[in-house]
């Protein structure tokens, strides 16, 4: 495959999806032009409005607010010639074949002769759409289906038409994966493709069984959320968030495009849904839908009476007990055996989705793995249908489904496909089942996947083997089994949420010492969970309750020792981050030789929320960084930076992307942002090797660090004084913030005084321990431990 660089992307259509896809391009550093129809007053008005609208969407489509201005604005009347600059053109206009064809005819003459042309249709036939392209373009046309919101939903379905050139799909898959950070599956050209085909059927099955069993919508949401490994918004609340008009649209698409589907009799809109849409109650965007917020109460529609009633239905204890069963086989069997309507409901929705997915597997997907991953990445399920089925015992569950079909309980009388009986599961070590080819197929051999040392695996798939080099109860130092561990081993935590307590601290320090003796570098990376949620409050609590401040100060001192050990290691130490890196986790990031962060990293020093200040070197590092930044300016005034940093820390503000974390100062210029979370480990190892090759040595300890001192503290205190007097912060917020100010300014010394790192560490540690001794901070810590939420006191 020749090298093909996508220098610039064009997105046609500035609707919700088009604008967000454009936003995600600039998040990833890809220049993009966003097109739409010319507006009435301002020719670019429609696109400008769409870009302005990005700022109001939640969660934020842009990784950093100022990236909005990186999206170039264009309209079809004036700027089609600029398509010649673009190597990839993504069409994302309304789902009408005639409109799309008309647009293709218009833009085709302006595309350059190697440009890839792709439609972000959510369900129209790619082959039919391809017919609207001139002959010369057909080999370069395909479907590329993003899920909403495109920045956050990993899935992109890639769909070839009959004429699409295979090499082009490989290029696009590589670009989508490595550059845009998306997770790709190749879908076949069938209506609604893979994820929506199964996902919308699953919603229809939920609708059907809700009605059949007379369950409340809130009751079903309690059942179909995290308890069965699906998102918190479960089914009906998700529908409200997505919009009931959109839900209606996708169901109508099923009705229109799949008349011969054996389940077609169930492709229908419930009367209550049509009534709601008719009334303009479209869900969250119109203030009412299946749920309605009334003051502080959330009320739910009672479809029988057409009225809203109080919500809050709960899962019956006996059903909750079944769901708590760890063994999937026993869990499903118990649901099926129970007479409780909630249990019968759950078994029914599992059974019908298993049935549906098995029946259609050969037609819609290349393998069962693609179906399962599509449901994880596109719908946020913890497991796809085949995984759950296989984990519960393939043949046992198959027999149960068959019995239900025979008894007329299933939604369709269609028998299970014959292949079901011949297998003991669809996921094996060597690959996943391809029903059309009646064989097991391995994962893609595309070179881009070599960058994913630990890709997301489905249940039953083989894991890459690793070898432990050293471990203690809370950390493990390891290497790949097929690799000589001499070069760059990986350190991972075993604690819950990868929290950092004294044993982890000992482990990090020991691992660095071992790596200095035996290896070329060290990568800190977590195979599961967040990078780290920070200090292990649970381990601190008993000391706090015993009032053992000597021991507590000892832990803080060890935290600082750990940070300094990372910073001054004789080998490069790379923090390989994705997900949360909070508090102490953030301090590891700040002290590592380099941080390699997935774009979707959430990094911050949030200690203020529990009434504490960063004291693992976080404040020290900011005092140092601001003094260095100031030294490069004419006025040499660290306050120019400290005010912003102070606000960030006092508010416990989080960088909600790696780019934002860099903007807030948590990441340094030399830190690296990686679009795909599963490539982080690969890049981190390469970075360690490169730094080793470059002759890495520990940095010299900075001497003579000028601090803002007592004048700086007073200036920051001025803000606090106003906020407290205005009742915007509590007296304890004031105290915590003042402690942050004191640590950032280097303590009660004259401005411009020269100090060293030891001094700064002492100041932050002293402030930390003082706060620990206050009842308000103790209350915040206990509240966080018990509720997981910050206490305002």
């Amino acid at each position, binding site marked *: 495959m020749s090298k093909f660089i996508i220098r610039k992307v064009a997105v046609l259509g500035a609707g919700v999806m088009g604008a967000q896809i454009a936003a995600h391009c600039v998040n990833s550093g890809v220049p993009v032009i966003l097109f739409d129809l010319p507006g009435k007053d301002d020719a670019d008005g429609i696109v400008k409005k769409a870009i302005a609208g990005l700022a109001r969407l939640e969660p934020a489509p842009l990784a950093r607010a100022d990236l909005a201005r990186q999206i170039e604005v264009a309209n079809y009347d004036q700027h089609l010639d600029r398509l010649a600059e673009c190597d990839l053109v993504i069409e994302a206009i309304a789902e009408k074949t005639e409109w799309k064809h008309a647009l293709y005819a218009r833009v085709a003459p302006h595309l350059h002769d190697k440009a890839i042309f792709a439609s972000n249709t959510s369900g129209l036939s790619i082959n039919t759409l391809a017919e609207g392209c001139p002959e010369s373009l057909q080999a370069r046309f395909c479907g590329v289906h993003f899920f909403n919101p495109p920045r956050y939903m990993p899935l992109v379905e890639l769909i070839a038409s009959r004429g699409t050139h295979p090499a082009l799909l490989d290029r696009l898959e590589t670009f989508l994966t490595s550059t845009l950070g998306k997770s790709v599956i190749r879908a076949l050209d069938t209506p609604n493709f893979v994820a929506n085909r199964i996902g919308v059927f699953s919603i229809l099955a939920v609708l059907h069984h809700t009605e059949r069993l007379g369950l409340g919508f809130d009751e079903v949401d309690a059942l179909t959320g995290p308890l069965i490994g699906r998102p918190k918004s479960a089914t009906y609340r998700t529908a409200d968030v997505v919009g009931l008009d959109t839900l209606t649209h996708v169901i109508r698409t099923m009705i229109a495009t799949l008349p011969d589907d054996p389940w077609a009799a169930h492709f229908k809109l419930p009367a209550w849904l049509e009534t709601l849409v008719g009334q303009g109650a479209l869900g969250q965007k119109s203030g009412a839908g299946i749920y309605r917020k009334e003051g502080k109460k959330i009320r739910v529609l009672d479809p029988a009476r057409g009225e809203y009633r109080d919500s809050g239905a709960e899962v019956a204890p006996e059903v909750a007990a079944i769901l708590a069963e760890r063994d999937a086989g026993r869990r499903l069997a118990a649901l099926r055996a129970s007479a409780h309507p909630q249990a019968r409901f759950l078994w029914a929705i599992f059974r019908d989705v298993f049935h549906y997915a098995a029946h259609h597997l050969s037609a819609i997907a290349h393998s069962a793995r693609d179906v399962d991953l599509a449901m994880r990445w596109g719908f946020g399920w913890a497991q796809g249908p085949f995984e759950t089925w296989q984990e519960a015992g393939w043949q046992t569950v198959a027999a149960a489904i068959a019995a239900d079909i025979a008894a007329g309980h299933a939604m369709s009388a269609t028998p299970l496909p014959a292949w079901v009986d011949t297998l003991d599961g669809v996921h094996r070590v060597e690959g996943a089942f391809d029903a059309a080819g009646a064989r097991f197929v391995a994962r893609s051999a595309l070179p881009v996947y070599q960058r994913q040392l630990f890709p997301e695996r489905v249940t039953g798939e083989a894991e890459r083997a690793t070898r432990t080099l050293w471990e203690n109860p809370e950390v493990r130092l390891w290497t790949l089994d097929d690799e000589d561990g001499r070069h760059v081993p990986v350190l991972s935590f075993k604690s819950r949420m990868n929290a950092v307590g004294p044993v982890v601290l000992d482990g990090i320090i020991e691992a660095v010492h071992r790596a200095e003796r035996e290896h070329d570098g060290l990568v800190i990376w977590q195979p599961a969970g967040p990078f780290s949620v920070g200090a292990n409050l649970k381990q601190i609590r008993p000391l706090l309750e015993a009032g053992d401040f000597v021991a507590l100060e000892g832990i803080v001192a060890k935290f600082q020792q750990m940070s300094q050990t990372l910073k001054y290691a004789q080998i490069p130490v790379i923090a390989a981050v994705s997900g949360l890196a909070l508090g102490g986790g953030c301090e590891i990031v700040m002290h590592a030789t380099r941080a390699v962060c997935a774009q979707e990293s959430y990094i911050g020093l949030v200690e203020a929320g529990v009434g504490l200040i960063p004291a693992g070197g976080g404040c020290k590092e900011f005092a140092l960084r601001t003094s260095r930044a100031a030294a490069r300016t004419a*006025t040499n*005034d660290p*306050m120019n930076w400290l005010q912003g940093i102070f606000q960030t820390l006092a508010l416990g503000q989080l960088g909600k992307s790696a780019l934002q974390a860099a903007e807030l100062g948590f990441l340094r210029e030399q830190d690296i942002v990686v679009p795909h979370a599963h490539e982080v480990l690969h890049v981190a190892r390469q970075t360690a090797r490169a730094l080793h090759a470059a002759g890495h040595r520990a940095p010299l300890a900075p001497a003579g660090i000028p601090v803002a001192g*007592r*004048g700086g*503290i*007073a*200036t920051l*205190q*001025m803000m606090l*004084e*106003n906020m407290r*007097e*205005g*009742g*915007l912060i509590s007296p304890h917020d004031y105290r915590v913030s003042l402690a942050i100010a004191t640590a950032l300014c280097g303590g009660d010394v004259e401005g411009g005084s020269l100090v060293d790192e030891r001094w700064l560490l002492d100041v932050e540690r002293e402030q930390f321990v003082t706060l620990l001794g206050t009842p308000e901070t103790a209350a915040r810590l206990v509240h966080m431990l018990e509720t997981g939420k910050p206490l305002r006191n």
Partner: protein
Amino acid sequence: MNRQIQDAYIVAATRTPVAKRRGAFRHVRPDDMLAHVLRAVTAQVPQLALQEVGDVVVGCAMPEAEQGMNVARIGVLLAGFPDRVPGVTLNRFCASGLNAVAEAARRIQLGEADVMIGAGTESMTVMPQMMGNKVAMNPAVFADAENRAIAYGMGLTAEKVAQRYGVSREDQDAFAQASHEKASAAIAAGHFAAEITPYAVREHLPDLAGGAVRIVERWVEHDEGPRADSSREGLAKLRPVFAAQGSVTAGNSSQMSDGAGAVLLMSETAVKRYGVTPIARYRGFSVAGVPPEVMGIGPVEAIPRVLEPAGLTLLDIDWIELNEAFAAQALAVMRTLDMDPARVNPLGGAIALGHPLGATGAIRVATLMSAMQRDPALRYGLVSMCIGTGMGAAGLFERV
């Protein structure tokens, strides 16, 4: 107290339009605005020999950066005045411009000069933070509870005034709405035309497509702040910014602005020599301190101090320019002194017209002089304002 050698007369006054912070004057320097009003005010007396100007006193609340370097002298030189004309910058925060006019008058009263200019200039655009380029509090402020109010932002002091004097959110919003209505009506009626010297803004902007510097010229004629579309409903929607349970909003506070004003004063000798008709006689100026946490109440102390020596009461004052730093403090002052609302800010105030801190005093003197020229029934006029860290100032003028 009242002994003086001679009277000081205002013979001319003018101002720039007042622009919103980062608005029409976002690329205009405060020293250029100053030079503009200095040229304009002296142009009103074309027979004046500029070298006769004894001194130019310029008020500026944040005399640093673009408006530092003794902006008065820079403005004098940029205006093309002869080298022998000196300039001094004076800072009394929001009363700087009024204090500059008073200082100019007193030099005449003492016989030290026959021709003086009192002026003010302020660009709040050039101030990165409202407290200047570098905020640097003294730690001693926090060492003594009594001094903590030095650290209070102006908005917080307005909240304190609202609380202490019982000024409701509704009253503040109604006052703000009236300010916009009066100002919009005044603009429509052309009442500001005589006092404003329009400003030709010339900007050097990059033309990225053409790869050249594009010179853009704009003519600024009107105050930018007044909103004809302001409504009570709109104001009511704004959230308090300075206190959780507060009532002071962006809508019932003065606007941050850019602008300049200048007043030309002469002794009787000079009036006769140049054959000019004076507009008003300067009758006095006062300042008074109040607790910093209720700085907005300053005029309550300052106004009696200027009226009593003149043997006048507020009933004698036909026109009052009371700076609307905040609706809360303006209402508290009006109620405490029992002012007739009909005489206060007949053309609107800083909530609508804007408040370029140190320039405001000179600007509002220009407004008062213009009103006196327009309406022969006006005899006495007062310009007053509150001052950050707790002071008030008032200047008294009598039509001749």
